[in-house]
């Protein structure tokens, strides 16, 4: 196409440039990933606390725990929705996000298992550890897939660069 040259960028309004800069912002994506992970991990740890409580809790405390779990899960859900609908992750972002997720799940698994070991029975420790291992494995799988997709795109980019030159 005749119009396709860098000089054509002069025709892009500043307002559009700003809107698109916000739209592709890496910081915004990482913030949503962090918020989602924080919400999900906090909800998980509170659930472990609640489940390993040796004595029955007062009703108000139970309501508070349930409320905190719901808030954490809601943040995780909101972040998931934003990242799938509004701020989809590009290949590099997915790798970064998956690394964050892997780190967060490993830490949460360690913390949750330690909590269960200190406060609960052997069955609690096993269930918590198993759940943590499953989440960690899922995060590792996401990371492997993200890296594989990135490598695939890098190969394609190199091939197209050779064709383009």
């Amino acid at each position, binding site marked *: 196409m005749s119009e396709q040259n860098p000089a054509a960028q002069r*025709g*892009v309004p500043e307002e559009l440039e700003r809107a698109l800069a916000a*739209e592709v912002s890496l910081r915004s994506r990482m913030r949503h990933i962090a918020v989602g992970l924080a919400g999900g991990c906090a909800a998980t740890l509170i659930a472990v606390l609640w489940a390993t409580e040796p004595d029955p809790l007062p009703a108000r405390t139970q309501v508070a725990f349930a409320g905190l779990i719901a808030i954490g899960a809601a943040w995780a859900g909101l972040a998931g929705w934003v990242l799938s609908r509004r701020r*989809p992750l590009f290949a590099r972002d997915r790798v970064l996000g998956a690394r964050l997720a892997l780190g967060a799940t490993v830490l949460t698994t360690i913390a949750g298992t330690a909590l269960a070991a200190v406060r609960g029975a052997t069955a609690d420790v096993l269930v918590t550890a198993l759940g943590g291992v499953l989440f960690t494995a899922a995060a590792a799988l996401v990371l492997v897939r993200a890296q594989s997709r990135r490598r695939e795109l*890098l190969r394609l*980019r190199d091939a197209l660069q050779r064709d*383009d030159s």
Partner: protein
Amino acid sequence: MSSDVHDGLLVVRCQLGEREAFRELVGAWHAPLCRYLRGMVGSPHLADDLAQEVWIAVVRGLPRLRQPERFAPWLFTIARRTVTDQLRQMYRVPETSLDVVGDVVADDELSGVLTTMQIEAGLSGVPPLEREALILFHLQDLPLVACAEVLGVPPGTVKSRLHRARRMLRTTLAERGYEA
């Protein structure tokens, strides 16, 4: 096609997450996109608003684009959907299927004769379906197959729309004193 390779490369760089590539992609395609939108809606201000909507949809859909070299038809498909939504909002009429598959007709003598300026001057006198076929084929230089993909109709239908559009354009231009 070299421009397809270049576009494909830009798209792949965007999919990788190179933020600079987005600026290049928008810089390369904003003018053709605006030309299409202005041709379809008439108002430059509305076209600018729609262009922003289209680009946001493009950014959000780009990670899922599986054929980077097919960027142009994909972009104009999004643009067309945006225009359709806008027109539906403006006129509040239910969407009707306006496709009448005509016989495949041979290109008439106008295809090589009309200039870009003449086409743009006569666009307002051509109905929307024929108008978008004209814009995509003559002003955006998309191949017939890509036009068919954008419009969601067989290539034969695009040909017949183009034929009708050129006939109407000839009439419109003749009325306005152009020599067609």
